[in-house]
């Protein structure tokens, strides 16, 4: 009996997450590649037209200056973010289907890792690991852009003051982090739905994931009450920024955690996500190779 307690400590959740990253290299490769390509575009525009545009920017009012100057940084961030959401969706759709397809579920189940740990590790990939990866990649790329911009400005003999004073150095990473958290929470029910389908469907996971919502929209539309359901689904899919930010009177997007957290739709979504994950854990226990 005592021997059981003297054995090595183990970290099933940590290693379950690591193994997902081993299997799905696209989780970090895809955002990296998109970031690299976008960065090249941004750098080319910086190298060719930075000095000219900086002169124009100097003539604008301060808010416009800031939005003009931070535009490439936002573009970088948005591209990486969209990529990581897409990668997360495709990952979820395969996460519990692939292991049944290649029969490796029998290997995973032969080890002392619970279905709860397995499903939570997989859910943690799009909800925590991918946002973290995106944050690191975006921040690094933005630093490279700032560095190159500064070099360009300096070599043209222009003062760096406009660039450095107008770039929101503190707000950018904080705002980005907030946006990533908002996105993860807002998309939680989407990811959970996809995971559920990947555990449930025997084949055609994509069709099973997409057709029921579409059918629901079509059904509600035919009985005449279409717009409510459609707008709920639409805002769930593309409305993350709208939920978490407010537009100021000067046209700036400002983080608004109070608005976000007091929105019942956010909590409803999290509740649905929790329910779907619970169902997925129960399903995974019954699952055998296909």
């Amino acid at each position, binding site marked *: 009996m005592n021997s059981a307690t003297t054995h090595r400590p183990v970290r*099933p959740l940590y290693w379950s997450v690591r193994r997902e990253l081993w299997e799905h290299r696209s989780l970090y490769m895809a955002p990296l590649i998109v970031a690299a390509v976008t960065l090249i575009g941004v750098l080319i525009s910086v190298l060719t037209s930075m000095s000219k545009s900086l002169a124009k920017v100097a003539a604008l009012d301060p808010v416009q200056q800031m939005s003009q100057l931070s535009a490439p940084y936002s573009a970088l961030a948005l591209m990486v973010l969209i990529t990581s959401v897409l990668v997360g969706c495709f990952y979820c759709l395969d996460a519990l289907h692939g292991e049944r397809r290649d029969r490796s579920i029998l290997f995973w189940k032969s080890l002392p890792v619970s279905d709860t740990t397995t499903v939570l590790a997989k859910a943690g990939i799009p909800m925590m690991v991918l946002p973290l990866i995106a944050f690191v990649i975006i921040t690094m790329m933005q630093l490279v852009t700032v560095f190159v911009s500064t070099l360009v400005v300096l070599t043209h003999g222009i003062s760096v003051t406009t660039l450095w004073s107008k770039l929101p150095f503190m707000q950018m990473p904080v705002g980005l982090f907030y946006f990533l958290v908002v996105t993860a929470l807002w998309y939680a029910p989407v990811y959970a739905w996809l995971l559920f389908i990947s555990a449930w469907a025997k084949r055609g996971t994509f069709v099973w994931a997409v057709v029921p919502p579409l059918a629901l929209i079509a059904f509600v539309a035919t009985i005449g009450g279409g717009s409510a359901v459609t707008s709920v689904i639409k805002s769930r899919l593309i409305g993350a920024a709208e939920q978490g930010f407010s537009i100021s009177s000067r046209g700036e997007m400002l983080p608004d955690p109070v608005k976000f957290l007091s929105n019942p739709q956010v909590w409803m979504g999290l509740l649905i996500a929790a329910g779907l994950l619970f169902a997925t854990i129960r399903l995974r226990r019954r699952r*055998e190779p296909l």
Partner: protein
Amino acid sequence: MSLTTPVVAARGLTKTFKKHIAVNGIDLNIESGRIVGLVGPNGAGKTTALSSILGLTPYEGELKVLGRDPWTERDVLMRDVCFIADVAVLPRWMRVSQALDYVEGVHPRFNRAQAEGFLAKTTIKRSSKVAELSKGMVTQLHLALVMAIDAKLLVLDEPTLGLDILFQKQFYESLIHDYYDKDRTIIVATHHIDEIAHVLTDVIFVDGGKIVLSCSTDDFESHFFELSVHGEDIAAARAFGPIHERHTFGRSVFLFRNADPEQLATLGEVRTPSLSDVFVAVITNQPIEVKGTA
């Protein structure tokens, strides 16, 4: 506790799929330190019974493995139970080093040095992916992982299926020499019964979801006899009530259960039959001619 708790205790274990009964009320008691051969034709319910024992499928009836309910406690049970399923199930994308890292990271009773030791005897490279290994090497890798786990029960379902004869021999040799000891229990489901007959302590024959024979190999030798006789003694041999007969090269070979070997010896040569001959006899349960008829 471990001295009194049977490794597997089942009463009325039943598993029903939509239309057919895969396992039909099995009673089973496997004590610690046994090597049990589970033998049956395809569709006999072997894999389903093992799936129940391993917590992979729900079931009806009572079932305790090492005192635990496998269906609700699979993750805890897997600290003491290992299994290798009937086909290669190691993920093909995984590298050998990753497999070692992962099992070490999640299994409290995995001894990495031991696994590395087993691998050192093979040609498997640490940097190879499972997809790059031959079928025999994948089995060697899986066996190396499993043998380095200090488990109480090891379940193997057709572990050598598709392996060439060299790997088959090596597989069972390492299992017996490097792994098995008195505190461990091994259950092997297989078709190739004669290949493992010499290492088994018990045999269980299943057919149609039921156990048709369950005995230790020692009992087996004192209960089953094979008698081969020539022409004129055939009728006399039949009078003793054989469970099976077959004819080869002008001789008739009868299989007896619970007969008196001394009486049989008066008619011809008496031997202990092979497990597979008894298996065929018990499963068909009627005298049929198997090998070349006269």
